[in-house]
């Protein structure tokens, strides 16, 4: 009749179901983009060394690391932005849906429509709000009538969380908007051409905290439909918005994994030093 008394072990770190409205990373997510053995050189200088990274579909992947670590270089390889940099050489393989994006015969303009980009400083064209968004669909021939174009522009502004604020000033210059609005305009411009992947290079570093929060909220919504890869200097931002994090250091991909693991129990000493703000 004497039984062992089984108590539940006390646990203080296990995942709480439903915690974090930004969503846990999905283990079974399909791979949207993959880098294999990627080396990048600027002339004789090697900027990236043997990068292997899978980008899961419809999730946010954050690239973090100190200045000069190669994270922006890597981001720019993903839509061949480095093609136009003199002396830049990309080796290894980068694929989207299994297809080599550096293969001969790939239409780079078309590729960049599928892989949109948002930059650090909002850079709207010196055109009206409407024309900023309509520009991409126009050159890619996505609309055959004014009504269709209206639909694309309104839908894109809506998705970028900007429509309510600019509905009455669609003809006003895009450069007259506030910094945060300009950045959302650039996001609207990027999604107007129906990309599959959106690259963001420090999209909030020029914005105040409220505009930053709006962009982060937007990123969280956008990941339902788009695969997002973001370079950020703010570790808190990476922790808040991403599901996967990759840490770059001196041109190497040091550690990658679920964001929650990178920020609570990183394996590599260099990652640990960086995320805790120590001198590495």
């Amino acid at each position: 009749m004497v039984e062992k008394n089984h108590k539940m072990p006390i646990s203080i770190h296990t995942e709480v179901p439903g915690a974090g409205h930004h969503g846990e990373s999905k283990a079974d997510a399909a791979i949207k983009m993959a880098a294999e053995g990627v080396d990048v050189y600027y002339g004789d200088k090697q900027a990236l060394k043997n990068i292997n990274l899978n980008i899961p579909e419809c999730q946010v992947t954050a690239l973090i690391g100190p200045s000069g670590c190669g994270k922006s270089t890597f981001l720019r390889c993903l839509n061949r932005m480095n093609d136009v940099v003199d002396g830049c050489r990309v080796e290894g393989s980068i694929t989207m849906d299994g297809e080599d994006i550096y293969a001969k015969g790939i239409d780079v303009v078309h590729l960049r429509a599928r892989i949109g980009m948002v930059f650090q400083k909002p850079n709207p064209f010196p055109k009206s709000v409407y024309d900023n968004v309509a520009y991409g669909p126009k050159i890619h021939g996505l609309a055959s009538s004014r009504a269709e174009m209206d639909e694309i522009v309104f839908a894109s502004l809506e998705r970028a969380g900007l429509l309510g604020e600019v509905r009455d000033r669609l003809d006003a210059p895009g450069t007259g908007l506030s910094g945060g609005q300009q950045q959302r305009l650039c996001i609207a411009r990027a999604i107007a051409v129906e990309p599959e992947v959106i690259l963001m290079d420090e999209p909030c570093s020029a914005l105040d905290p409220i505009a930053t929060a709006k962009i982060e909220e937007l990123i969280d919504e956008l990941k339902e439909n788009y695969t997002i890869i973001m370079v950020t200097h703010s570790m808190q931002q990476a922790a808040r918005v991403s599901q996967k994090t990759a840490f770059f250091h001196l041109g190497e991909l040091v550690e990658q994994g679920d964001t929650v693991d990178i920020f609570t129990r990183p394996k590599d000493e260099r990652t640990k030093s960086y995320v805790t703000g120590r001198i590495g």
Partner: protein
Amino acid sequence: MKNEHIVHAYDKDLGRLESLIAEMGGLAEHQLADAAEALAKRDVQLARRVIETDARIDALEKQVDDFTIRALALRQPMADDLRAIIVALKVAANLERIGDYAKNIAKRTLTLSTMDPVGNAAASVQRMSRQVQGMIQGVLDAYAQGDIAKADDVRLRDEEVDLMHTSLFRELLTYMLEDPHNITACTHLLFVAKNVERIGDHVTSIAEAVHFQVAGEMPAEERPKSDMTSTMGLEDD
């Protein structure tokens, strides 16, 4: 030696937190030792001092709470810093409970000192208490040194406390069966024994927290448990 933070005040905060825990732990261990000694020697004065001193542990816990809240808000800790801060909070809560149990033993000692002693029960409690004091020392060392092996060792030593508790429980039942006049004193002693056993559980919980702080995950194995008092009836005898 760990790398320093770029912001030096951060290192200072974490260091202060560690020394608060060390102070609290030392005090909690001392309180248990004094409470057990007061019981064994029927020392009312010592028991009163234990009761008064508990307020100091409570005050230290409040300081740890304030510190951790401040650190979480101002530093947004990550990785091992985050674990250090969460673990400090958890360790402090456990130490505070240990203090409460010691205080309760002292209160019962005041009552028991007005009654006839029952067999060797008080001495058995003190033996059990020494085992637990050793565990507290061990877990504080493990915490201070970030020594996972030491923490795991402490965790396993709780089984011995369980065994001592079970045997003391039996002993007290026997005294009560022998003479119903013993029942009041024995009931208090049962609570005293249970308090010491619970302190052992809190030490175990601290050991698990230290393991978590160092390794980033809880110890995998279920620890052996031998407290059988919950299922013990008279027919056992």
